């Protein structure tokens, strides 16, 4: 805007067609080594969990009583077998399906709730905002693990109920993030400009404001997956979550407790999977946080 006449007819400040793969955000993400590692790990893990069980010679429920406690790398079973002679690799991949599905689904639901509450609270503010945000504060006061345990003691545990339970205890952070963002964006001129054009409240919220708050939401979503996987593991480990024979990384750990000294791989393998998945998601979250914040370039 500084060059007076030329700017009107001249070329734009940047070439209009930059490939999305060349965007500064992606470049910043790629510079974040651990985040790239995390993204690759999650990708490989997800693919393996989806495709793997079809390729393996054993299913996760196939019991071979003669091959109990086979240690890893000792024959047909690459990662060994458990106390019933079930193939550990097959079980880990099937458990991965459940655990990752719980992670993503719980994230999606908690995002929807959190974004809706945050949007409405941030946009309308005043009494509506105060009531909603105090409700969020109240929800945050519950220690979520105990809440999860208490509730899952009353209802029949299953994959769907676990997803819902985790989602209902994980949306508050998102609501707070979104509320703060929307409150700030609401005062921006383009929000008033859209209103002056006859845009409805919902339209201003969803079309104008929400896309501008997407960066912190994406970061929160990534970290939420890690949180959900971890939460599922806790509950399953304590026996209130996913019930055998359906495997999950958490209940595999629970199952391994009795054989910690005799067959340590039973605990180590699912433990390693949980650690790998959770840290990967956390790295991705960190990377996205840096990549989506343009100020990190100024360092």
């Amino acid at each position, binding site marked *: *805007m*500084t*060059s*007076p*006449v030329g*700017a*009107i*007819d*001249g070329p*734009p*400040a*940047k070439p*209009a*067609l930059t490939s999305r793969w060349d965007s500064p955000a992606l470049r910043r993400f790629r510079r974040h080594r651990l985040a790239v590692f995390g993204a690759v790990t999650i990708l490989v893990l997800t693919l393996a969990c989806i495709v793997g069980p079809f390729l393996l010679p054993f299913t996760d429920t196939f019991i071979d009583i003669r091959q109990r406690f086979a240690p890893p790398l000792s024959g047909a079973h690459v990662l060994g077998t458990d106390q019933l002679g079930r193939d550990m690799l097959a079980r880990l991949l099937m458990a991965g399906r459940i655990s990752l599905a719980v992670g993503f689904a719980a994230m999606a639901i908690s995002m929807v709730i959190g974004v809706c509450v945050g949007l409405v609270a941030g946009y309308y503010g*005043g009494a509506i905002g105060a009531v909603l945000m105090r409700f969020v504060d109240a929800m945050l006061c519950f220690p979520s693990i105990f809440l999860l345990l208490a509730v899952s003691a009353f209802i029949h545990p299953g994959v769907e109920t676990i997803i819902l339970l985790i989602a209902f205890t994980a949306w508050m952070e998102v609501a707070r993030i979104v509320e703060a963002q929307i409150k700030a964006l609401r005062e*921006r*001129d*383009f929000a*008033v*400009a*859209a*209103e*002056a*054009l*006859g*845009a*409805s409240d919902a339209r201003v919220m969803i*079309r*104008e404001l929400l*896309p*501008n708050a*997407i960066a912190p939401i994406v970061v929160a979503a990534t970290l939420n997956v890690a949180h959900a996987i971890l939460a599922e593991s806790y509950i399953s480990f304590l026996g209130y979550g996913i019930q055998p024979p359906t495997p999950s990384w958490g209940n595999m750990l629970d199952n391994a407790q009795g054989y910690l000294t005799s067959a340590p791989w039973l605990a180590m393998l699912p433990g390693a999977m949980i650690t790998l998945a959770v840290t990967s998601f956390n790295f991705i979250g960190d990377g996205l946080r840096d990549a989506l914040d343009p100020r990190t370039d100024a360092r």
Partner: protein
Amino acid sequence: MTATPALVPAMAPVTRSAASMAEDVVLDVEDLSVSFVSPQGIVPAAREVSFEVRRGETLAMVGESGSGKSVTSLAILRLTPPAPQCRIEGRVRLRAGDRRVHDLLALPEARMRELRGSAAAMVFQEPMTSLNPVHKIGDQIAEAVRFHSALSKRGALDRAAELLDLVGIPDVRRRMSSYPHQLSGGMRQRVMIAIALSCEPVLLIADEPTTALDVTIQAQILELLHDLQQRTQMALLFITHNLGVVAEIADRVIVMYAGRVVEEAAVLPLFKRPLMPYTQGLLRSVPRLDLAGRRCDELAAIPGNVPDPLALPPGCSFAPRCAHRVPELCDARVPLLEGAGAEHFVRCARWASLAEGAPP
């Protein structure tokens, strides 16, 4: 709502015929008062503002920061904060494109929303921040088009291209897929104007549309607005504090001070023979390049500051800064907006004697 309502007699001589709007009047504002509730008390931002804008006419609203210009314009479209924080009184009537007259302040919100953008649109001061940074230009215009029409997405995009062409943006197809940060300030303001014009409003409110632009771009934008007005015959309410811009674009001018209209006149009489001492001061405080060759005095300024809206003087708001103040006359009560010639109104207790005594 003023401090001394009892002392203000009937406003009959100045209020225009309240019952019916003349056929060519697009916007009729009567006794519009806007006040904000703050912890310190009630802040009157606009007080009994009355004016009308006719078809094809440009009315400039001039005043310092805080004189109530922007608040008035926002209140017309009901874009001020909601009720408990902000109170609006008075009457605003708008004659929409179908010649139906709407009483804007009495409309339900949903009906108001239909009129915003379609009958009355607004261009804001900051082209840098009035566009949504995450959407492409073409999509933003198409979106605005679709607020009030049943056009398909494709049809709306075609219309957007047409509008960009209309506001003089070259290489339209490429610009459509640009993001706001890829455009210069002048171009962004053109885009804002294109958006405002998308539904062919009968009234365009431009709130300091050129203030954030540099001078050459200002001139281009003013010319563009003028051209568009010639073509569409829309009424233009132009808010500014730049008297040079006023001289260039306005047909009539209203001067605001401390939330009140203090003078209203056609543009030539106002510049030639300002009656209100405040207007005179404003005109004197404009730097004059043509005088530079002769003697370059210090730039004339109006002494003092705009009064605190929480502690307004009981009489004329400008009295404390006025060189012609006669305490018993000026501080006694708020002067009326009196007729002082054809379409010339002034709110000054002494305008007649000043005009006689010291002809400019």
